[in-house]
């Protein structure tokens, strides 16, 4: 969930900088590692099956249908949040003269194409784009921390307040950045880990990477814009990237490299999210075909695209943040529920 480390999550975390932000990162990491561990281990008991397939097979029908719909909706909302935010960012920073409608259409035309590919192919695309982007993004993160104008004292103030009791939405926001492993619910079908259990070491690595990632995304903007000054920025990370200067290079302003890389990353994230959403919901849809192509996934993508482009005009940035907060808070119980449902399915499988 690299995409949201710069968009929604830091804004919510920074709002909580007075209020146990650091602690919430650690709680979030801990909870997510637990979820990760249990969720993966149960999924691995059903080799080559998607989450939805398992649920459909072993859980009573009406619960299964409801559950699958909710899960699918969660993935679509995740994709929607990314898109709405990045359409706004693109309009604001890259090309203010382009209408958000056009931006939405070009984003979504690529995303629809990507999301309707086969599962393994979306993975290939993900790999390529990430492999291309992550070194640059990592370099920018690293460069952002070695700057003599950064105010370390402001960062230390965050730690002063870091261990107060955090709000639920802040914890939700941190767990959101660990959301990636839920995508495995679909990719279980195509990836063969050749393991019966998730190694503990992997859990630790994931947790550690996530913590470092979140700490950077919270602290660096504060170091650049001050504990009090950060408050006014809508997209703290992009303003931070603008404050990084590349002394020797063709391009002096890091902001643009950062923006273009992140537009790329966000599109692939939204693609994967929508893909998982589609793959989840298709099990409760009729398998109607027209000229050998299933219609419903295409239909859903079109509805989703229309909804996203139109909704941009009806929702303010503030409302998006409020919705994101609710959504993040909602993620925590959903994690527990999915695990419970999977355990239930596992029981029923064993007892025939």
């Amino acid at each position: 969930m690299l995409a949201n480390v710069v968009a929604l999550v830091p804004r919510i975390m920074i709002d909580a900088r007075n209020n146990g932000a650091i602690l919430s990162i650690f709680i979030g990491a801990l909870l997510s590692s637990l979820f990760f561990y249990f969720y993966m281990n149960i999924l691995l008991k059903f080799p080559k099956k998607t989450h939805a397939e398992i649920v459909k097979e072993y859980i009573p029908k009406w619960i299964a249908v409801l559950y699958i719909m909710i899960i699918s909706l969660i993935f679509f909302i995740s994709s929607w949040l990314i898109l709405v935010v990045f359409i706004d960012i693109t309009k604001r920073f890259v090309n203010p003269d382009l209408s958000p409608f056009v931006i939405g259409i070009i984003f979504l035309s690529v995303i629809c194409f990507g999301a309707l590919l086969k599962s393994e192919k979306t993975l290939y695309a993900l790999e390529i784009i990430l492999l291309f982007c992550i070194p640059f993004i990592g370099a920018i993160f690293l460069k952002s921390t070695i700057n003599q104008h950064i105010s370390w004292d402001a960062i230390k103030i965050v730690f002063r307040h870091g261990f107060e009791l955090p709000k639920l939405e802040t914890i939700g926001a941190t767990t959101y950045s660990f959301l990636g492993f839920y995508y495995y619910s679909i990719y279980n079908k195509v990836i063969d880990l050749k393991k019966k259990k998730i190694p503990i070491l992997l859990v630790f690595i994931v947790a550690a990477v996530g913590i470092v990632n979140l700490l950077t995304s919270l602290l660096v903007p504060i170091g650049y814009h001050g504990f009090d000054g950060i408050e006014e920025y809508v997209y703290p990370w992009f303003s931070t990237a603008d404050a990084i200067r590349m002394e020797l290079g063709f391009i002096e302003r890091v902001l643009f490299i950062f923006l273009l890389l992140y537009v790329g990353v966000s599109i692939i994230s939204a693609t994967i999210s929508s893909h998982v959403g589609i793959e989840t919901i298709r099990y409760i849809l009729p398998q109607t075909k027209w000229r050998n192509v299933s219609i419903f996934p295409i239909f859903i993508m079109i509805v989703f695209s229309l909804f996203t482009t139109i909704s941009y005009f009806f929702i303010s940035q503030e409302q998006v943040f409020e919705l994101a907060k609710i959504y993040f808070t909602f993620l925590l119980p959903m994690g527990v529920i999915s695990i419970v449902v999977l355990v239930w399915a596992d029981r029923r499988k064993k007892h025939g």
Partner: protein
Amino acid sequence: MFGKSNNVDQLKPLLEKNFKGSKDATFQNLDNGNYQLKMIYINSVIDTSKIHDMFVKPFFEVEKKEQYTKYLQSLGDYKEYKNERETIKDILHGSVVFLIDQTVHLIGLNHQENNSVLDANVETTIMGPQKGLSENINVNLNLIRHRYHVPSLTVENNYLVGDKSNIEVVLLYDSEQVDTKVLKKVKEQLNKVDRSIVQSAGELHRALTSRKRRLFPTLMVTERPDRIAYNLSLGKVIVMMEGTPFVLITPAVFYDFMTSMEDFYQPYFVGKFLVLLRYIGLLISLFLPSFYVGIISYNPEILRIQLAFSIASSRIPVPFPSYLEVIFMLIMMEMLVEASIRLPKTIGPTATTVGGLILGQATTEAGLVSNIMIIIVASVAISNFIIPINEMSFSMRVVKYFLLLFTTLFGLIGLVISTIGLIFYLVNLESHGYPYLKLFFSESKRPSKVS
């Protein structure tokens, strides 16, 4: 084994009807006093010098008919008579038909003129083998056998492609390494080919892929025996064709098109450096023109100010928007490339001089394009030639216009979006069941033994 008595009666008029009219068909009657025979062949496809030594001389030395028949049957290229249609096909492919009394005998005496081994001049290497393939399939098989001494190397040659051209196609693979699924698919597709004329490997490539309109090569075309041998060892299937010094290799994925055999002949780091260089070249030739348009027309604040200013001042005399400038120069460049390929070797350099030097100089003098643009076009052209396999570099030439279109419409965002679209498209392609573009992720249903 002896044909039925009415074979000759049927065949003879048929052959006469088919071939009597053409000048190079020969109907020869021989009579040594004891018995007669009739020889029918097309002297332009067979080795006529051997006719006398192999058939005429023994005919007058052997007294009995049965003995001569035995002699014919003992020859290496003896074929049994099957039916009239096959016989006509065989004659066309260089067989001699013998009619002795009521029996028919066929002897292959195929001769092709251009069987010399050609220099590899499409994919050249500095230190690797210098010779490529020839236009003769047997010579090619010989070349490959000499590079790949393994008993499991299998040659299958029961394919004729094209209703009219009837070109012989041979499948070549290492039966121990090959992925049987790929093999099956290739065979199916070879049987399905429905074109009247197939003459080059590229055409066969078109016929062999299920997607009719494609932008990227999904089979590799090569002329290098060393590449063929290398790919055989990786378990790939080679499709050879009579009459062309190129073969097809399948499955071929994106990376294969970016490797040159040279990489294996150089020291490790040099090889890696060359590969890296190629990818950089690929990126430059794909992105530079669109990047130019995106920066010049949408986000000039990206560049550092000193650079932005030197571009701005070099663009001042240019009377039209940046994308026209870019398209104009790119089209000129493509024409130059095309012209120097098609022109005879002796005039080729003149075209490049006129186009590259004089035209380039004059357009900037006239203020039609900026100096920077000339640099960009030149570097795009050069870096495009770095891609070792010609087919891929041609594809990339086309792709950059798509990127340019999107960038012209939407600025740098368009560039990012179209790049992602391109990646999705490439990822979606398959080469006989193999994903075209992927990195590390391995599928659970990974086909065996093929890299």
